């Protein structure tokens, strides 16, 4: 038996004559946590999709424990022992946790019927293995759970297949620190059972915490396979970018917190948030540090007219305004880059330009028709100024990378001449270059006297980027920080 649980060698694949993967060798030892690292577009999703049976490779072999296997669908891959946890959740919202976990398999039956009791017990066992059985009931409906908890169910679902190789795609992205810790504990447990884990993440520090080894892929070629202890973060980041990476220090000059605030919240209350007082001054980037479920997204959605305001006042430039709908918010100069760009930010089958002008389509009227020339001008302006990688304003956004999609959402907000930009984790799932570009765009925006309210799941970003920071816990703002803080400070304060 081979020491490698999975050994893919000399993999090639092309799409329409474009060579995407070049003789890629990729192997993972049994009981090893192995990171697959690369920027967006490097080819890691393509490689994973080949391993997972979604794409058919043009040439090369894949062997599982030394045995060459041919499989062409995710179902066959699953039978071969390869299970994947998807980044885009694949759960059925209206079903319960237990029903979701055993959705495809339904292994527990009484004759023709599903044995719900047995399935429930086993689901519970899986949850307790992950250490969340006290927080999540197997009878909870998935739609009632937070994104973080849904992600955990997704992992439990993959584990229910007893895989030999488990692929985790950005598993921690939407988890709270505590949830991440318990996930890492699970990964350790799985490792001891001899399961190999292919770990894909943009959180490079996690790789050094949890992974034994890593493979770096760049431009469809394998750059190296190393043990994690032999390299460090700096080396990895440099190698990812191909030596073009520059270290980023934001060096922002702090905005003065004086005069009339651009945005002022007085004792805001909704179903989810309580007694919110907050001020943003012109030119200021204000951060909200809070865990998932702290009410941070709900606060932003309230300011954008999506969540219903119960009591309290919203003042823009010292004047009380009515924000009972998103169109009113946009009229008052407030725009939101929502948490989920694909579901909330974009119409995926619309062209780049149509997405960019979506909020201002009424302002682009010439007689009764949309002014195509002006639309094109605006779109081209933002494609250039935000450096969007696209074939042109007419390209459908579905096929853009995550970073470029996010830039389109930001462009849509900027195009409406907003004064206040609400950002809900704008750099989530975005590669490091696009991330820096997006941060730069936000800084430029603020420096023009606009205000920014910024949420990030990476506290490092908040600590390094924001002029002042509110700590949010359980729907309340508990602390205000205007001095420099470190990531560790924030991590402690939000607990």
């Amino acid at each position: 038996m081979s020491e490698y649980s999975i050994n893919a060698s000399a993999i090639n694949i092309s799409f329409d004559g474009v060579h995407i993967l070049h003789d890629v060798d990729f192997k993972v030892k049994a009981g090893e946590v192995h990171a697959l690292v690369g920027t967006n577009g490097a080819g890691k999703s393509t490689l994973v999709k080949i391993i997972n049976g979604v794409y058919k490779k043009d040439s090369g072999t894949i062997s599982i424990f030394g045995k060459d296997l041919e499989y062409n669908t995710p179902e066959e891959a699953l039978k071969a022992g390869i299970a994947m946890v998807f980044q885009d959740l694949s759960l059925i919202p209206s079903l319960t946790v237990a029903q979701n976990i055993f959705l495809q398999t339904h292994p527990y039956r009484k004759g023709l019927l599903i044995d719900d009791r047995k399935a429930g017990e086993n689901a519970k066992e899986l949850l307790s293995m992950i250490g969340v059985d006290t927080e999540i009931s197997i009878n909870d409906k998935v739609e009632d759970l937070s994104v973080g908890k849904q992600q955990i169910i997704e992992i439990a679902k993959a584990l229910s297949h007893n895989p030999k190789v488990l692929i985790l795609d950005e598993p921690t992205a939407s988890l709270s620190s505590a949830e991440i810790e318990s996930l890492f504990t699970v990964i350790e447990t799985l490792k001891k059972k001899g399961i190999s884990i292919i770990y894909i993440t943009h959180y490079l520090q996690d790789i050094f915490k949890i992974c034994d080894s890593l493979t770096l892929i760049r431009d469809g070629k394998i750059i190296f396979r190393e043990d994690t202890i032999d390299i460090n973060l700096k080396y990895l980041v440099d190698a990812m970018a191909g030596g073009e990476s520059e270290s980023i220090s934001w060096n922002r000059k702090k905005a003065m917190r004086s005069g009339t605030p651009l945005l002022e919240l007085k004792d805001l209350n909704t179903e989810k948030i309580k007694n919110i007082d907050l001020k943003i001054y012109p030119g200021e980037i204000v951060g909200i540090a809070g865990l998932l479920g702290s009410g941070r997204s709900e606060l932003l959605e309230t300011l954008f007219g999506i969540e219903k305001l119960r009591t309290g006042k919203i003042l823009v430039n010292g004047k009380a305004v009515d924000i009972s709908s998103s169109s009113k918010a946009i009229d008052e100069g407030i725009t939101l880059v929502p948490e989920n760009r694909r579901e909330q930010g974009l119409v995926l089958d619309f062209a780049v330009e149509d997405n960019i002008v979506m909020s201002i389509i009424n302002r682009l009227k010439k007689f009764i028709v949309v002014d195509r020339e002006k639309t094109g001008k605006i779109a081209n302006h933002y494609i250039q100024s935000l450096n969007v990688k696209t074939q042109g304003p007419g390209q459908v956004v579905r096929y853009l990378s995550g970073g470029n999609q996010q830039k389109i959402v930001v462009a849509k907000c900027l195009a409406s001449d907003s004064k206040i930009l609400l950002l809900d984790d704008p750099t989530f799932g975005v590669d490091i270059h696009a991330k820096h570009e997006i941060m730069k765009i936000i800084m430029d925006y603020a420096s023009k006297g606009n205000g920014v309210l910024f949420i990030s799941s990476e506290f490092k970003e908040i600590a390094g980027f924001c002029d002042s920071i509110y700590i949010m816990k359980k729907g309340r703002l508990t602390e205000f920080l205007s001095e420099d803080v470190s990531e560790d400070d924030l991590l402690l304060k939000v607990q």
Partner: protein
Amino acid sequence: MTNRLKEIKWREHVIYFIFTGIILLFSVLLFDRGFLTGSNLMNIARQTAMISIMAVGMTFVLAAEEIDLSFGSVVALAAIITAQVLRATGSIILAILAGLLVGAIIGIINGLFVAKVGIPSFLVTLGMSGIILGTARWVSHLQSIPINNDTFTFIFGSGDIGPVPVLFIWMILAGSLGHLVLKKTPFGRKVLATGGNKISALYSGIKVSRMKMSVMVINSVLAAFAGILYTGRLHGARYTLGTNEVMIVIAAVIIGGTSMFGGKGSVIGSVIGALIMGILNNGLILLGLSVDQQMIFRGLIIIIAVSLTMREKKG
């Protein structure tokens, strides 16, 4: 990636190939039976005009990711009301307004339930179609209402201007106007955005419920107008008008490249789709098929055509 783009282009344009294919097929098969004569083609245009006009409205509804099953009975009720008002008052304008008003009111009721109450349009319009048809049967006492106002019948259905049927002109008008509104105006873009992704549309400040309301009203008003044209063409109204056309109209729109899942719509495609339906009808009759055989063939061809237009690439 290029492959995907090709795929989309293919799906958008396949309608024109089907259209040309069917015309060629019938031209050959029916060469000696007068398929290509001017009078037969104008006949097809007459038979297709109302389907086309309803298809224009349905394009908006489907593009916004809604459905309307009640428009067939709107045709009947609007036709009956128009005919009754015309007989009672003798005023063409009043009659037209009354007919269109019927459409508008029903559209508003549909829209309120869909947009404000939040009931799926499928259920609302299924229920409404019963109510409307029942009303149509009741107010007409199941009787035909004949019309002998020549001006009315000339303008709204039976007239020809030179060799061109008036109905054909109405069809071109509705098609061009619909195309302009859906493809070129902010309103059309907002309809497509609503159907493409309701949530993103909402997050972009688009008043989603107003869009839903609007498409339901547009569809009902156009159906009412089709009812008026049926009245003019047949020199009278009857409660059976329209109800048989519901599936044909929806099929025409889908063959024309409008997505049932919203976000994509082509008014021109829908009109071509309606023409395909009309040509099929005409050709199958000329071929000498019995009514039963026609039904079977039409069903088959609809399924094949829709499969071609909806062909999705796997993976």
